[in-house]
């Protein structure tokens, strides 16, 4: 099943690097223009569940890596997890939304927008999701200094003194 899919992917798309990690795990690295068409291709193959969109901050290479994890619910013989990776520039953190293929991508993209500052073109609901405070740099980026932030905000709040009259 794995090798079949690898062949299919590599023949349908040019610049896709497919790697079989385990019996049930398969990674594909693709350029960012091809992501949407690969996702719809895989959806037609039966991988109808987008389990997760994640992001890795490669600060030395000045790139963000977006990770899409796909599984299948509808077809029982397709047990693989497909991990689709693509890279975007750190300077210009913009990418197209995949809501047109997978509707449940919306909250994942909101999360990445909030924690990494990536702007998903076409997603109209990039509003705050978890965080209550404002951050100058999105807090999950590697150049966000948490220790400095804690010193400046939470540590500066004074204790309510007990004995002072």
């Amino acid at each position, binding site marked *: 099943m794995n090798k079949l899919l690898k062949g299919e992917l590599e023949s349908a798309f040019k610049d896709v690097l497919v790697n079989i990690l385990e019996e049930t795990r398969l990674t594909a690295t693709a350029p960012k223009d091809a992501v949407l068409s690969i996702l719809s291709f895989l959806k037609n193959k039966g991988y109808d569940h987008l389990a997760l969109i994640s992001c890795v901050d490669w600060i030395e290479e000045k790139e963000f890596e977006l990770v899409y994890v796909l599984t299948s619910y509808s077809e029982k013989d397709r047990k693989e997890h497909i991990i689709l990776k693509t890279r975007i520039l750190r300077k210009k953190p913009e990418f197209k939304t995949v809501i047109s293929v997978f509707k449940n991508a919306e909250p994942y993209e909101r999360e990445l927008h909030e924690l990494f500052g990536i702007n998903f073109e076409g997603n109209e609901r990039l509003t705050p999701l*978890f965080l*209550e405070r404002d951050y100058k740099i999105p807090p999950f980026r590697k150049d966000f200094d*948490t220790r400095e932030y804690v010193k400046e905000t939470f540590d500066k*709040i004074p*204790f*309510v*003194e007990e004995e002072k009259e």
Partner: protein
Amino acid sequence: MDRNQIMKWFKQPHEMSQKYSLWVVYFCTGCGIIEIPPVITSRWDAERFGVIPVATPRQANLFLITGYVSVKTLGAIIRTYEQMSAPKYTVGFGSCPINGGMYWDSYNTIKHLDKYIPVDGWIAGCMPRPEAIFVAVTHLWTMIDKGMATGYIKYKEKYKSYRRNQEKALGKLEWPPLYSMEGKDE
């Protein structure tokens, strides 16, 4: 029950009933809540100590903060605490509410809970054993007897300072002040 205090209980029976029925808000703050199901069920049976979880904060008078407090949770904690009826006691459970614990340099957890609401006692450890809750409860009894568990009175007196700290952490608060905002600012 302490036999020496029987006369005191006859004079002020409500104090005994408050002391021996500490009802807990069933409020899951963090990972510490995993210790609560064994505590309230038959294995450790907290009802021996008069501790039972209740559905709403308006019926409760013991507030267990079980775990790390994120900024968003802090808002819910303050709201819950202000809804509880006096006398109310707060106990921080685990090392995270004391000083941040393993989240001491996290971007989104508050480090010292007693900056925002008064805390009567702490249970240290990560995780504390369920027995630690009973140690805390019996300790709280002694504190109530001696008049040391006065967090809720302090909250009323120093409300201005608490409210100021809450606003520093959360920005503008959505609810009106519980007590009068007049008073000394420290």
